[in-house]
């Protein structure tokens, strides 16, 4: 095994019972959101996960830091099985930054407080230290002047850039992006993708679930195509977009504007 592997997903399954409502279940007794996923994520790699809605991409991403508990399988993060019972999941999560579709900034705190609360409480940084780090990162995304604002005073694109910075303040080893641009107005998508590109260029390990095929092509080191809870195809952006093998992927690519 390559010791360059940061996260290793082994035969990951997530099954759950459908709601007890006959109208929708049609005799299905189990929904297989993830049905045997094997995936290695290497240090410094940008893995982009694409696929139709309901294919399990978000479930996979959320399983990586156990926001979803898998039914079976393993996730090895930095050599440790985080799916083991009594694994120190809170410790592991500090090293995995997560960016959500709906930003999930804390509306009752200023931007600066949003950025410093976790480093101060979890990494035991001093207020000064945490704020210096936060301001330096804010500077980089061009939002230093909004440090004292509240999230409700920002645009969607600004909120998402702040959310990225909030994760970076914890100095994570990997960043997970769950459709980071899907809730944004079209004209704000670019500013968020720019920040992500910059991050990728600096060598951050990233797992990105997205519908931005342009981003996948340009920034992705590897593209993973999922459908019906399994990885149908994976490869370089070149392979996936210009030479798709499976019908499922060809069908998908034909429907999205690339």
């Amino acid at each position, binding site marked *: 095994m390559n010791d360059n592997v940061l996260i290793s997903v082994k035969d990951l399954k997530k099954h759950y019972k459908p709601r007890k409502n006959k109208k929708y279940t049609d005799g299905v007794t189990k929904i297989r959101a993830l049905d045997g996923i094997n995936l290695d994520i290497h240090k410094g790699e940008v893995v982009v996960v694409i696929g139709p809605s309901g294919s399990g991409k978000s479930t996979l991403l959320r399983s990586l830091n156990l*926001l979803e508990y898998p039914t079976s399988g393993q996730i090895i993060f930095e050599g440790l099985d985080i799916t083991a019972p*009594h694994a120190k999941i*809170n410790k592991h999560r500090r090293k995995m*930054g*997560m960016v959500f579709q709906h930003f999930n900034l804390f509306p*009752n705190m200023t931007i600066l407080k949003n950025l410093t609360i976790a480093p101060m409480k*979890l990494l035991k940084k001093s207020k000064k230290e945490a704020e210096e780090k936060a301001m330096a990162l804010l500077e980089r995304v061009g939002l230093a002047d909004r440090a004292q604002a*509240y999230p409700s005073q920002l645009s969607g694109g600004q909120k998402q850039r702040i959310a990225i910075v909030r994760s970076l303040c914890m100095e994570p080893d990997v960043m997970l992006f769950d459709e980071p641009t899907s809730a944004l107005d079209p004209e704000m998508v670019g500013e968020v993708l720019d920040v992500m590109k910059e991050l990728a260029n600096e060598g951050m390990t990233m797992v990105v679930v997205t519908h931005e095929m342009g981003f996948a092509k340009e920034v992705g080191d590897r593209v993973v195509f999922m459908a019906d809870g399994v990885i149908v195809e994976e490869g370089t952006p070149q392979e996936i977009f210009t030479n798709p093998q499976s019908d499922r992927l060809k069908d998908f690519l034909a429907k999205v504007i690339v």
Partner: protein
Amino acid sequence: MAEWFEQIKAEFDLNFIQADRWKSMLTGLENTLLITLFAAIIGIIIGIIVAAVRTTYDNNSESMKYNGSISYYILKFFNAICKIYLTIIRGTPVVVQLLIIYFIIFATSTNDIMVATFAFGINSGAYVAEIFRGGIMSIDVGQFEAGRAMGFNYIQTMIYVIIPQAFKNVLPTLLNEFIALLKETSVAGYVGVLDLTRAGNAIRGVTFSAFMPLIAVALIYLAIVMLLTWLVGIVERRLRKNER
């Protein structure tokens, strides 16, 4: 006109001044406020505990089951007890609860006011618990996930992220619950506590003049409630200032 005025004055004199009857009303008011205040405190304590058990169970049962931890079963047990408590308290009239607590559970106690306070506290706790739980549930689940994803454990997420936001949402409702509690204590007379209502009613029984004492009682309740409502308004405006 003057005659009517004289009559009012005589009535007032009879109901409040003679035999220092106003003093018994003052004692009644004191008892009412005392019962309300301490019942509210008991209610908040019970409410926090019950809401904590219920929300912790709702939020963590999946992860606890996943880890196969024994605390899952302990929590499940306490959650069931909390549910029974809520069902009984919210499903029966407060007067019946008061009578049961006074004549059955604390049958040997001689401290009427304390027993009544206890009864109203237990009653209020059920409503306060549901107010707290509603407040916590009203916070977007994304806030919770953001906290957990950053590495906060469940309790830290609650303390740093969820509760400060939930508190703002519940404060007006909570104060309204205490306004309701104040008025509910008027049934304390059922178990012989001299509260404001009973004091007024007792005066009526002696003077055979209903108007003055009962209207006075009503006005006093109204004045307190209006004062509290005004305070709720101020608090609400303060809290909203921060955002948007």
